[in-house]
Structures are given as C-alpha cells and as structure tokens.
C-alpha cells in the first residue's frame, strides 16, 4: 500500500485547498460582475441530473395518484381539481375584468388603450426539483432553452404569479419564486393603482404564509385589507396585471408617508407541480417608455 502510494507525487492538500478557494472566489466574482451563469456546466449537469429528477418526480406523482385511487375520495378529488381549475380561471378573469374596468374609468378620455391584457403566449412546465436548503425558495422546471425559455420570463400557476426565470440550461430552467427572501416585485393595488413594492420574506412566510410589501403611498386611506395586488406597469421584469395576492394587514410606517404590511399570495407554493411560463418578455424599449410616460402623466392629473 505504502510503496504504491509513494510512487505518485501528490500536491499537499493545503495547496489544493488554496487553489480551489481561488477558483471558487474568482467564479463568484465572475458571476457577480459579468452576470455569467454556468455555461457548459449547466449543460452537463442538466443532461446528467434532470432526467433522473424527472423520473423520481414521475414516480412520485404516479405513487400519489395510486394512493389517491385507493381512497374512495378519488372521484371527489377529480371533481375538486376541475373546480379548482375553474376557480383559478374565474379568478383570473375577474382580476382581468376588474383591472380593465379601472383602467377604462381612469383613461377613457385620455388614451385609446391598446389591448393591455392580451393573451400572453405560455408554455406549461413541470416542477422537477426544489432548492436543497431551507433558506431560499427556488426551483427548477423541466423546460429549458431548447423549448424557448429565456432568462427573465415570468412564471405563473393557476391565476397567480409564481416567479421569474433566473437561469436556463438546455433542458431545465431555474425559477426564483416571489416568496424567495431576495425577490422584489414592483406591484400595484388593483383598484387604486397605487404602486408598492412586494418582497419575499422567509420568516413571515414560514410563520404565517404571508410575504411583505412596503412603500405604499396612500394618503387618503383608500387601500383596505383584502385588496388585490397585481404586478405593476412600472416593473421592468414582470408583465403587467398578473395577480400576486391579497392584502392581509396594513401598517403605517414611522415616517407617516408610506405604508407597509403583508400579502397572502394566491399560489400554493408548497404544492407546486405544474407552472406556466409566459414566453413574452417584458418590453422596455422606447415604445414602452412612451406609454409609461403617458400613463404616468395621466395618473398625476
């Protein structure tokens, strides 16, 4: 054993550790500054692990389906699913119509609005794995750049916003959900169109299933508990008018100018299986800026 080992000359482990540390640190800085993702690493890891994760998930879904069959509740569950889908559909429609009405009321005389909530192109995808740690809420889906997924696409489920694609591999994509502690979404109250900032919060989410919002300017106290929160037109990452959730509490900030509080998201993040990816990216070109200016002057008047 000894003689066999001594034939090879090994670099002392200390130096290997130093070299690897340097590699890691430079990788962190590279991805920080250049916003690079894994590149070839993504492809290799994608081809090796994604099929296995898919397999495990399919097996899991099959098993849970079988378990459901054994229960006499099978039919009820089926019906429940259909009804749930119907509820989702109707909620989405309701938000849409509500939004459209408010928009109409405000802008009718000022602007001839184009179709705002045109049907976005969507792709369905399955959730195949969730973040290994307990700190962040990210997950991977089984569609990647081969299916036309790009960084920055919005992900929804049922009638609500789930998150945004932050990285793509050839056959998978990484999604950061809106309940993630680092997530920030520019949103607005659907009926008063006041802008606010929705940020994910690990502690409140774990404790009571809510996320926080802040910087709501609402001098006349028009915003109430139960109001709908949708993504805002000022957001440069999220498409406008996607339902996020409902306000569950409002507090006055100590500066007496802004309010903050909590929102219950409409999406059940615990049991996400199928999501929809909106393949239209938010356009932030000239045209969009113009319409933004127009609507901003409109809201000031």
């Amino acid at each position, binding site marked *: *054993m000894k*003689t*066999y080992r001594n034939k090879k000359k090994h670099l002392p*482990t200390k130096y*290997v*550790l130093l070299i*690897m*540390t340097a*590699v*890691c*640190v*430079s*990788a*962190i800085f*590279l*991805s*920080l500054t250049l916003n*690079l*993702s*894994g590149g070839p*690493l*993504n492809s290799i*890891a994608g081809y*090796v*692990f994604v099929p*296995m*994760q898919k397999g*495990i*998930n399919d097996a*899991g879904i099959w098993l849970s389906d079988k378990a459901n069959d054994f229960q006499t509740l099978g039919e009820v569950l089926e019906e429940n699913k259909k009804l749930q889908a119907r509820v989702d559909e109707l909620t989405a429609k309701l938000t849409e119509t509500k939004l459209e009405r408010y928009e109409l009321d405000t802008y009718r005389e000022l602007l001839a609005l184009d179709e705002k909530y045109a049907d976005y192109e969507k792709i369905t995808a399955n959730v*195949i*794995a*969730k*973040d*290994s*740690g*307990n*700190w*962040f809420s*990210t*997950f*991977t889906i089984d569609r990647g750049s081969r299916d036309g997924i790009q960084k920055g696409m919005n992900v929804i489920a049922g009638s609500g916003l789930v998150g945004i694609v*932050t990285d793509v591999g050839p056959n*998978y994509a*990484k999604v*950061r959900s809106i309940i993630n*502690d*680092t997530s920030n979404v520019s949103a607005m109250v659907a009926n008063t169109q006041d802008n606010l900032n929705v940020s994910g919060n*690990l*502690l409140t989410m*774990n*404790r009571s299933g809510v996320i926080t919002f802040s910087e709501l300017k609402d001098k006349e106290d028009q915003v109430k508990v139960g109001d709908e929160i949708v993504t805002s037109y000022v957001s440069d990452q999220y498409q406008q008018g996607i339902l996020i959730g409902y306000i569950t509490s409002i507090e006055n900030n100590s500066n007496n100018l802004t309010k903050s509080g909590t929102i219950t998201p409409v999406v059940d993040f*615990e049991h996400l299986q199928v999501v929809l990816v909106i393949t239209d990216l938010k356009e932030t070109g000239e045209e969009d800026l113009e319409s933004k200016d127009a609507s901003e002057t409109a809201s000031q008047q």
Partner: protein
Amino acid sequence: MLRKICLFFIITICFLLQTTVFQALSLAEIAPNLLIIAVSSFGFMRGKKEGMFVGFFCGLLIDIFFGFYLGVYALIYMYIGYINGIFQKRFYPDDMKLPMLLIGASDIISNLVVYFFLFLFRSRFRFWDYLRTIILPEFVYTMVITIFLYFILLKVNQALEAHEKRRAKKFDV
C-alpha cells in the same frame, strides 16, 4: 476508480433525494440536509482531501441548480469537508458520538455561514428568529436522518476500503 464512481453515485443519490423526495417529506417547510451528511462523513472517514473534493462537487451541484452566484456553496461545502478531514485521526468506526457531533456541527455551521453572508448582509437582523425557525429544525431533522444514512455511508466506505486493500496486495505481489 471504483471509489470515484461510488462517490459520484452517492453524491447523485443524496442530491436527488434531497431536492425531490425530501422536499415533499418536509416537516413545517424544513427539509433535512443529506449532502452535508455525505460531505462531513467522507471528510472524517477519509481525510481532508477527499472531504474537500466531495464538498466541492456537492456545493457546485447546488450552485448550478439553485444558487445565484456560482461558487458560493462550493466554497462553503469544500471547507466543511476539509475541516471534517482534520478529525480523521480521532475517528473510530464503532464510536457513534464523534460522527454525530461532527455532522451536527457541520450542519449548524454551514447554515450560520449562509445566514451571515446571504441574510445578515442584506440587513435581516433577527438572528434568533432564523435560528429558531430554520437552523434548529433543520439540525434536528438532519440528525434523525444521519442515524440511517451514516451507517449506509460507513458500510459503503468499509467495502471500498476492503476492495482497495485487496487490489493493493495484488500490486505488491
């Protein structure tokens, strides 16, 4: 070579289980950390070098699929593996106390590092709340899983070592 293949499969299986099955089996939205068990175990069973490499690859996997900056988890897990390797001299397979202690400490320390760099730096100061809702529950759940997983890893490692000894003897003759 056989060891490398086995390590690859162990890392793969732990990663897959952790990201799929155990996420579904999570209690109060807390899942156990199987990868830290593997990294720590191979650290104190096999020494600094192997612990370091197992840690690096486990961390890299997390970075690729879930991290935001490539290399953060690779760095943390690599050091966890390396530090566990220092305790190789004190490791006896029959003694359960040291492995439990090291794996538990590794889990808590890795979570503290994550909290410190990725939460405290974004001015999330409520340390005790994070300790209570995230770090301690994960520690407890991980320790329960350790009792089963550690013995599997120990047996795999012993089988590998026996195989390597037989091969080394062949070379000597």
